[in-house]
């Protein structure tokens, strides 16, 4: 087999890091979207959902500009570390987080909003702070949504192409992910290798999704309504 395992390993690392960060970052954003009564909230919701409709190249382009040496963020990073974020694994993580944000935040927010409001009121009258209410009532009752959001952001990162190409380029061992590798092999008319890598990605993604949705179903089976 001519599969480049380094490519796989890198992609997996990226997906795990991104979905883990999104799990942490997505909770407060989703909480705010689910419970804020701010009248302009819909604008934030629209921004969060943008990556779903934008071409990845557009998102990737702006991320690249933002990370580059001409932006304040890029200059600050260079001053801090001595090198630019663009075309590094770190830059790839940032781009992928933005790109997969809605896939984590939307399921989170939907499940938070789906928690019966009376339970939240009951928690408050029993003396619980909003944070305690979140960890003891809202989060446990949202486990299926949390799993769904994390898995979707994981899978979405596994297969992304445009943002990676724009932000990361194609540096073996640093930013070359599976989808880029496949693209490269096809460009080189290396169809057999492309097929093997593509098939492996397909099987792997299906297995992960099937496993998690299978577990999720069990969560539901002991959850509400029974």
């Amino acid at each position, binding site marked *: 087999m001519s599969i480049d395992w380094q490519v796989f390993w890198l992609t997996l690392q990226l997906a795990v890091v991104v979905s883990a960060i999104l799990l942490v970052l997505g909770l407060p954003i989703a909480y705010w979207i689910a419970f804020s009564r701010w009248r302009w909230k819909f604008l934030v919701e629209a921004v969060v959902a943008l990556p779903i409709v934008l071409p990845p190249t557009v998102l990737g382009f702006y991320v690249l500009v933002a990370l580059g040496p001409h932006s304040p963020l890029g200059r600050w990073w260079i001053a801090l570390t001595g090198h630019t974020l663009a075309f590094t694994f770190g830059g790839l993580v940032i781009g992928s987080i933005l790109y997969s944000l809605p896939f984590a935040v939307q399921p989170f927010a939907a499940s938070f909003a789906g928690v*019966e409001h*009376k*339970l939240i*009121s*009951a*928690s*408050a*009258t*029993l*003396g*619980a*702070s909003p944070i*305690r209410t979140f960890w*003891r*009532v809202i989060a*446990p*009752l949202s486990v299926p949504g949390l799993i769904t959001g994390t898995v979707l952001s994981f899978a979405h990162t596994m297969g992304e192409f445009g943002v990676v190409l724009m932000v990361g380029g194609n540096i073996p061992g640093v930013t070359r992910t599976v989808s880029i590798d496949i693209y490269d092999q096809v460009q080189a008319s290396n169809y057999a290798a492309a097929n093997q890598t593509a098939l492996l990605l397909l099987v792997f993604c299906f297995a992960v999704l099937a496993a998690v949705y299978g577990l999720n179903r069990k969560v539901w089976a002991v*959850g*509400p309504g*029974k």
Partner: protein
Amino acid sequence: MTSRVEMAENAKVKADAGSQPSDASLGQTDPTLDVRLQKRLAGQSYEREPKDSVLDVEIRAAPGFTILFGASGAGKTTLLDCIAGLVTPDAGRIAIGDRVLFDRAEQVDLPPAKRRIGYVFQDLALFPHMTAEQNVEYGLAALSRSERRELSAAILKALRIDSLAQRKPRQISGGERQRVALARTLVTNPAVLLLDEPLAALDAPTKARILDDLRAWNQNHGIPILYVTHSREEVFALGERAIVLDGGRILAQGTPHDVLNAPRQEFIAQLAGVENIFDAIVESLHADRGTMTCRLQGRGASVLLETPLVRADVGSPLRVGIRAGDILLAIAPPVGLSARNVIRGRIVALQQHDVIITARVECGVEMQVHLTLAARDALELQPGREVWLVIKTHSCHLMQG
């Protein structure tokens, strides 16, 4: 409760920073709940006129039960939500003794978690992912694990649900769930208890037992309990101070008999579709049972009817309305019925409209009764036939004479 438990309760009181102990200092601190507030009810009910859409009340609830009685949409739940801090009033002041929970003018608005108001919701809102015991211990976060265990064990025992401690809400019966919800609230040692029809779905004996246990608990704690209901029977069963709320305003307060809705003009609107309307005189009152006897003014022999109790004097004129579909008809004297009114009469005429038969029955007054075709055929009804009419007390609707 054991003295160790009481010590734990005191510890809990001390742990509540800024709040005043209630039962630790009974007799020193005034535990009375004082509420004066306005809140727009807009958007909660489409049927209400604009003039009715403001909750505007002033109540004082001393220790013991105070019953809030009113139809749905009267503002009862909104009032409780305001007291608990779940809804912010537009104006007013809410205080327990001299501890101010809300004061618009002074810009005081304690969050629900700091108010020490126990609230048992209509749908209970038990945490579905926790056992009964975990539900009960939820409000005791400030205590150590062993103190929590001790307090929850004591309250579960006091409410006779200690055997259910490890069950989840969906694994226990409705009455048991009500007890868990009560226990979860009582264990936090609230300064005021709000009950929003928590017992509405229960049968009378279960309800009575839970209320007895609640009364026993409050013997030791002496806090104001606001009990919301839309059931007249419950107002009488509880038999204590009642406040009648209608369209966001207090209509009356006092003993259940004092505050009963007087027969009112508005009922005429509701009676528009009522086929049988009679003039009547109040014959006697049975305050203890929540009923009274009315004499219908007929052409021939007069008819006595047991009706729900309203605020009226013996001898005063009233009108009684009974829907034709609410009357049962029997061809032999029925026995063993719960309905209080069984009246002998004779069929004058039978008329068919579509699939409904209207029987006109002369029984001192003439009543219209709706029947199905099948009932007419099965009973072989025809004009001249002797029949007995059966009318439940609460099928008799009263309005001003």
